[in-house]
Each structure stands twice: as C-alpha cells, then as structure tokens.
C-alpha cells in the first residue's frame, strides 16, 4: 500500500515527494519504481535532531530506585533532552563507524517526529497540527550506565545517527501512539517494543519541550529509547523497523584508525 513521503536522494539538490511502500520497501518516483536498497540516500531533513532520555516506561524502570538516590535525587520532571549534532547524521545504507576500542554499539531504535512549523508553548491538545510527519531513527549509542552527565562521547560520534529512508506525511501514518518498533541484527529480530509504552506520548512531548524552548520546522524529536537495546559489532548489519513507516538499514564498520596509530 503506497503512502506519500518526502525523501532526499544523493545527487538531487532538493527533497523529493514520492509514493513509498513500507512493506515492499520500494519507492515510486514519477514513472520510476525502485527498491530502497538500490539508491543512495541522504538524511531526509535538515532540522535539528533532539533525543529524549528515559521516556520508555521500561527504560526508566530499569534505573529502579537509583532515581531517588544520588546523583539523581529524584525522577526526571521535565523532558531530558540531548542533541544529535550534524557530524552524527547519515542516511539509509551509510556505514556506522564503530570507534576503536569499542566492542559493540547499542542499536537505538526509535521514532522521529518531524515538526511542520515552529512550535513554542503549544498545548498538548493542539500539538498534532505541528507534526509534519514521521521518520525512523537509529540513535546509535555506546552502552553506558549513568545519565548524570551529558553523553557526548556515547552519543555524538561521527555517523551515530542514521535517519530515514523517508519522512512519511502525518495523515498517511495515522495515529503514532501504538506503533510497533523492532530492531534486527543481521536479519534476526533483537528488539520489539511499542510507542504505547511512552511515558510522555507524542503530543505531551511537543507540549512539554515547547514549554521551555522553540522548535523549528524540520526539527526532529526522538520519542525515546526502549530498554534492553540490542548490541551490534563491526561487520553486522542493523535494521530499525517501525510499523507502517518502513525500515532503516545500516552496516557497522570499524572506524578508520587515527593517524599515527595505523
């Protein structure tokens, strides 16, 4: 079943509007039809990518009573954000570098909510109209236990944020509040969860983030990372799949060594 989506292909200067089939993993672009894997993909938005920590019930529960103890003292009150900066962004199919000395990376399977317009102090009841569409994101992370300090070293490495393949228009997907999220490592199912398990559902995320900062058109909000993320190593191929939206696949490769260490 084909859906309207926006995408950026290598060699095309502007975003393209196409009919995509998330089940058959194919694209109809004008008269041309092709498999997703047959093209070179760019990140489908130029907006900023903001992640929200600890927004899956199971992920917060995994911290257990630690949230009441130092250094946290109490559970999170407002959304805890982080940024996936420009060096992290890669498209469908591009390799994710595994840094030297790091054995395995967590596959950060998540849904990206793409803003259609600037949003500040938006009520949850109005939030839907600020959503332009949805995309798939792999918020690649070096596994770490502490949420106390910003996790640049764990989350902001080059190539640590595959996005795509496309942005599906909001009304093409329907409700995003109960979508299955799956991750695969080398084709084998390694994670299954659903956006029904979000502590803050999407409308509430937009309300609570826009309560303290302005979001811009094209910005992407990652709804959160599920607990028990699968691990993958150099040589593996990982996929993040979201029900009705499609599948984002990337290989992991060993990072090029630093000069002088070859």
């Amino acid at each position, binding site marked *: 079943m084909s859906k309207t989506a926006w995408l950026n292909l290598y060699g095309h200067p502007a975003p393209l509007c196409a009919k995509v089939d998330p089940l058959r993993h194919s694209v109809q672009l004008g008269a041309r039809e092709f498999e997703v894997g047959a093209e070179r993909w760019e990140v489908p938005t130029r907006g*900023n990518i*903001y992640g929200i*920590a*600890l927004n899956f019930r199971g992920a917060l529960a995994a911290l257990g009573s630690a949230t009441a103890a130092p*250094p*946290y*003292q*109490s559970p*999170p*009150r*407002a*959304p*805890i*954000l*982080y*940024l996936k*900066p*420009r*060096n*992290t962004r890669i498209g469908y199919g591009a390799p994710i570098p595994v*840094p030297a000395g790091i054995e395995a990376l967590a596959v950060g399977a998540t849904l990206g909510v793409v803003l259609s317009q600037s949003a*500040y*102090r*938006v*009520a949850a009841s109005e939030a839907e109209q600020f959503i332009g569409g949805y995309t798939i994101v792999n918020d690649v992370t070096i596994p770490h236990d502490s*949420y*106390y*300090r*910003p*996790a*640049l*070293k764990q989350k*902001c*490495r*080059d190539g640590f944020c595959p996005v795509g393949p496309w942005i599906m228009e909001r009304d093409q997907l329907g409700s995003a509040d109960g979508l299955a999220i799956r991750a695969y490592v080398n084709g084998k199912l390694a994670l299954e969860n659903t956006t029904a398990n979000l502590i803050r559902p999407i409308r509430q995320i937009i*309300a609570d983030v826009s*309560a*303290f*900062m*302005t*979001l*811009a058109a094209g910005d992407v909000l990652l709804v959160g990372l599920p607990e028990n993320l699968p691990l993958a190593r150099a040589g593996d191929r990982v996929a993040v799949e979201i029900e009705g939206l499609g599948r984002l696949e990337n290989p992991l490769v060993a990072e090029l060594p*630093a*000069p002088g260490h070859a």
Partner: protein
Amino acid sequence: MKRARVAYGGVIHAATEDAGGVRLGSGECIAASEVVWLPPFEPQTVFAVGLNYADHAQELAFKPQQEPLVFLKGPGTLAGHRARTRRPKVAFMHYECELAVVIGRPARHVPRAEAYQYVAGYTVANDYAIRDHLENYYRPNFRAKNWDAATLLGPWLVDTADVPDPMNLKLQTRVNGKITQQGTTSKMIFDVPFLIEYLSGFMTLGPGDVILTGTPEGVVNVQPGDQVLTAVEGLGELLSFIVEDSASAP
C-alpha cells in the same frame, strides 16, 4: 580584523568594525545602535564546557572534573549583541561570561600542539542558566541551559591574528554598570588546545562549530530591567537586556 553579522535595511550584512559602528560590504558606515546584531558567524554545533574554572566549580560546590564536562546547545538559544532575553518566573537566573572559540576548518584527531591552526577566531559569550530548572539527568540539562535567546554571542568575531594569547585574557561582567564577575582565561582547568584535542579525539568538528569555554566565579541573579555587559579583553563587550516573560504557558 573584527567581523560582525548585522541586519540593516531589511538585509543581513557581513560587516567589519568601524570607529564605534560597523562598515557594511557596500562601504556604508552605520552606528552600532542602528543595526540588529546577530551572532557574528553562522553557528553550527555549539559546545559549552561546564565547571571549567576551579573557583566557579567551588562556588557551585563541585569537585573539579576529571575530564571536561561538555554539553550541546540548539540554535533557538542563540542571540546576538544587544539581545533581549526573557526571564522566566523563577528564583534564580544567572549570566556566565565566557571566551568562545570558533572552529575554522574540519578537525579530527588534532593534537594540542596543532590545535590553534583550526581556530577561525574568538568572540564573547554570555551563557545564561535558569538554575531553578536544573535536574540531575544529563546535567546541565537543556531546560536550564537552552532557554530561548539565552546564549549570546558577539559583538565581533575577532581573527586569531589579533588574539596572540587567548589563554591570558581578562573576563569581566558588569550588571547595570557594577562589576560582579572578574576572572582570567589563564585559570581555565581545560585550556583551548586541550578542548580541541579532546573533542576532535572522538568526533569531527567543522567550520562554524563553537566552543564556549566556561565561566569563572561571580555569577549573580539578574532581574527584568537589568543590563548585563560581558566583556573579554581585546574581543569586545557583549550587552544583554533582561526583560520580563510576559506570556503565560498553556
């Protein structure tokens, strides 16, 4: 050379310093008060370093860091010289006067001995904190440090050639003319070459990336109506107006 980006006559201009005002590309000289000042370069990834002066860390009752405490900022918090910053209805909001280092070319695995080759220039930063909104997750969290128009950069991007020793510059903040914060970049725990080596050691930096290097002791609460002037020796004076947050949340 001191460079600025200003809006004037409905156009954004690259400008240079000219006797108290700015000179536009056309050669016209305009008074400083006649233009809208933007950050003096187009910022890309914005890094900020916390607790990078031992005295400020002590002021906040923190032990010195073993490695730099670095956090990121989004574009919505950035503003230029003479910006208005809304003060939310909180108990404590403070300024932070900082040296900002602008990266000029792609940098990956840069050893500290070569770090200055990657710097395009320097500017002054005023990195406000909404202290009531601090939480102990990814601290300092976005809600405390990414308030709209609360990270000012400017007025000038000063070429590296004009800043022979960035690690020996006086910092000063004046609130309504009264000196409230003084320090020197020589007291940084992690200096500029270290920060470039550290960050480029695990990620690629690019032109327009900027590192806000932290603030010394002397941060005080500010109120609507306050004029806050943050200055770094040789770089310029960055003026900020605190205004009331009149709109209400939904």
